[in-house]
C-alpha cells in the first residue's frame, strides 16, 4: 500500500512536456503576395506601398504565382500532401497593422496538409508531424510608442506598411515535440531546409522566420493539459529558453495545486519571464469566409510533379550522399552542406582530387579564409581548378602542407594559379639532397644539442628541427627532416 502511494507520487512528479510549434515564414519572392510592391528590409518607412497593400477600398488583390510555387516546394520538402484545390479566406479582426480589417489567409482548404520533418537531435532523430501549411499575407509593422516596446503602456502606434502584404507561409506542427531542446532543433532544421531549397532566407533577426509555441504539460492520465501560447520568440536560443521557462512556470502552478489558464504569453529574454500578452476579450472569433476577390487554386498533379523535379536536393539527402559517395564523416558532410555554394565547390574539386583531402582543405582552410574576409564562394578568386592543383602539389610532395596554406592565401588574394605562386614565392619543397646538406649543417653548427640527442635526450630534437625549418624557410618536409636527423644522430 505504502509502495503504491509512493509510486503514484512519483508518477505525478514526472512531467511530460507537450510542445507544438507554429512558424511564420517570409517567402523569397521579389514582390508582395497580392500586389506588385517590392518586398524589402530596412528601407525608409512607407516607401513600398500601393492601394492593394494599404487596403484602399476597391483595390483588388491578385495572387503571386511564385509564392504559390514556393509554398508547394516547402510542402514537398516537408513530406506534405499538396492539395488539389486551395482557397484563400478572410480572417477578420481589427488591428492597426491590418488596414482592410481582415487578413487574407487560408482556412479549411490550405495549400498543404499532413507531413513530417525528421529533426536531428544529438545522435537521435525526432520525427515532428506537420499538421498543415498555408499561405497568407504579413501584416504591416507597428512601431509602438512607449517604453515597453509592446502594446500595453503605449500611448499610440505608428505604422509602416512596407512589410504589409509580404508573402507569408504558416507551418503548424503536431504537438509532438518532446522538449525545449527539440523545439529549438526543429526550428533550426526547418530553417536549413527552407534555405536549401530557396523558399526563404529564414533569417530570424530580419523577421523572415518567426516562431510561436503551444506549450502544455500532459496530465497524469495521459490526456493533454491546458495549453498556453507563447508568441514571437525571435531567436533560436529564445525558442528553447522561452519554452523551458514556460514549462517551469506551469510545473510550479501544478505543484502548488493550481490550474493552468489558457492564455497568450510573451517571453522576455532580459528577465527570463513570461508575461500575459492579450486579454481573453481578444477572443479567437475570426469569422473566416472564402475571399470573394480571389479565385480558387487548382494544383494539378503534373504541376506539383514538375515543381518536385526542379527542386534542389534536400539537406538530409545531400548529407547522406556525401557520406556514402565521398566517404566523409557525417560531421564533415554537414559542415560542407551548410553552405550550398561551398558544397557545389566541393563536388567539383572532389571529382578530380582526393575527396577527404578536398573536404579538409575546403571546410577548413578555405572556409576560414572566406569567413575572415566576409566573402562567399562565388565572390572568391579561388576556383575548383586551383584547389585541385593545390591538393595535387601537396600529394606529390612538391609543396609541404604548411607552405600550401601560404600558397592558398596568395591564390585567394591574387587569383593566380598555385603552381605559379609556388614558383614565384619559392615555396616549393626542399629537394632530398638539399635537405640532407641542411641537416648536416644544422648538426655541425649545434654540436652540444646534437651530442645530447646522441645520448638519448629526444627533447632536443624539436630544437634541431626548428633550425632545419628556419634554414629552409619552412619548406622542408617535416617528417623527412626528422627522420634524417634521427638517422644521422643514432649512435
Amino acid at each position, binding site marked *: 500500500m505504502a509502495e503504491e502511494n509512493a509510486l503514484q507520487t512519483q508518477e505525478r512528479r514526472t512531467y511530460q512536456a507537450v510542445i507544438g510549434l507554429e512558424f511564420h515564414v517570409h517567402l523569397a519572392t521579389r514582390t508582395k503576395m497580392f500586389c506588385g510592391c517590392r518586398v524589402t528590409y530596412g528601407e525608409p518607412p512607407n516607401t513600398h506601398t*500601393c492601394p492593394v497593400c494599404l487596403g484602399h477600398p476597391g483595390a483588388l488583390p491578385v495572387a503571386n504565382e511564385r509564392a504559390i510555387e514556393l509554398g508547394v516546394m516547402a510542402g514537398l520538402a516537408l513530406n506534405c500532401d499538396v492539395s488539389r484545390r486551395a482557397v484563400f479566406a478572410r480572417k*477578420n479582426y481589427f488591428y492597426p497593422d491590418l488596414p482592410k480589417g481582415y487578413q487574407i489567409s487560408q482556412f479549411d482548404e490550405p495549400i498543404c496538409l499532413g507531413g513530417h520533418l525528421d529533426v536531428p537531435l544529438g545522435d537521435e532523430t525526432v520525427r515532428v508531424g506537420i499538421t498543415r501549411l498555408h499561405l497568407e499575407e504579413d501584416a504591416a509593422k507597428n512601431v509602438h510608442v512607449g517604453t515597453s516596446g509592446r502594446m500595453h503602456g503605449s500611448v499610440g502606434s*505608428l505604422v509602416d506598411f512596407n512589410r504589409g502584404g509580404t508573402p507569408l507561409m504558416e507551418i503548424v506542427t503536431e504537438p509532438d515535440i518532446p522538449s525545449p531542446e527539440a523545439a529549438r532543433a526543429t526550428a533550426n532544421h526547418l530553417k536549413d531546409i527552407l534555405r536549401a531549397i530557396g523558399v526563404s532566407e529564414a533569417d530570424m533577426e530580419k523577421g523572415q522566420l518567426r516562431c510561436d509555441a503551444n506549450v502544455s504539460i500532459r496530465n497524469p492520465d495521459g490526456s493533454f493539459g491546458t495549453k498556453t501560447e507563447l508568441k514571437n520568440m525571435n531567436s533560436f536560443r529564445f525558442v528553447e529558453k522561452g519554452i523551458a521557462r514556460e514549462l517551469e512556470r506551469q510545473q510550479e502552478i501544478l505543484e502548488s495545486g493550481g490550474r493552468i489558464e489558457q492564455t497568450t504569453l510573451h517571453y522576455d529574454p532580459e528577465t527570463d519571464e513570461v508575461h500575459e500578452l492579450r486579454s481573453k476579450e481578444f477572443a479567437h472569433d475570426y469569422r473566416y469566409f472564402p475571399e470573394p476577390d480571389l479565385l480558387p487554386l487548382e494544383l494539378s498533379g503534373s504541376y506539383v510533379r514538375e515543381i518536385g523535379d526542379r527542386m534542389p536536393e534536400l539537406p538530409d539527402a545531400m548529407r547522406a550522399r556525401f557520406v556514402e559517395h565521398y566517404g566523409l564523416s557525417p560531421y564533415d558532410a554537414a559542415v560542407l552542406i551548410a553552405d550550398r555554394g561551398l558544397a557545389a565547390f566541393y563536388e567539383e574539386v572532389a571529382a578530380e582530387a582526393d575527396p577527404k583531402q578536398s573536404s579538409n582543405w575546403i571546410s577548413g582552410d578555405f572556409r576560414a579564409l572566406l569567413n575572415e574576409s566576409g566573402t562567399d564562394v562565388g565572390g572568391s578568386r579561388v576556383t575548383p581548378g586551383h584547389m585541385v592543383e593545390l591538393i595535387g602539389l601537396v600529394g606529390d610532395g612538391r609543396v609541404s602542407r604548411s607552405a600550401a596554406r601560404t600558397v592558398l592565401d596568395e591564390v585567394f588574394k591574387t587569383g593566380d594559379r598555385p603552381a605559379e605562386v609556388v614558383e614565384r614565392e619559392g615555396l616549393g619543397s626542399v629537394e632530398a639532397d638539399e635537405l640532407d646538406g641542411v641537416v648536416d649543417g644544422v648538426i655541425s653548427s649545434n654540436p652540444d644539442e646534437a651530442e645530447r640527442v646522441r645520448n638519448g635526450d629526444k627533447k632536443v630534437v624539436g630544437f634541431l628541427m626548428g633550425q632545419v625549418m628556419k634554414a629552409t624557410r619552412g619548406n622542408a618536409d617535416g617528417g623527412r627532416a626528422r627522420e634524417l636527423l634521427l638517422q644521422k644522430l643514432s649512435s
Partner: protein
Amino acid sequence: MISEEQVRHVASLARLGLTEDEIKEMGGQLDAILDSIEKIRELDLADTPPTANPLNLSNVLRPDEPRPELPREEALAPAPDPADDLFAVPRID
C-alpha cells in the same frame, strides 16, 4: 430568431457601437437574412459545390514582377495624422 446577445456580440466584433433601438432594428434585419438562407437550405444541394465566386475560373495569378508603387507623400496623404513618415493611430486597449 437571433438573440439580442448575438447581435451585441457581432456588433462588438465589428467594432460597431449600437444603441438599444439599433440592436432591435439590426436583429430584425439579420433575421430576414437568416430566413432567406433557411429557404436555400430547404433545397437539395448535395451535388452543388459551395460557390464563393460566380466566375467559373481558377489560378488567376500574376508573375512575380514589381509594379509601380505609390510615392510616400501620396501613400500618407489620406492619413489624418502622420508622424515621422508613419501612419499614426490611437492607443489600442
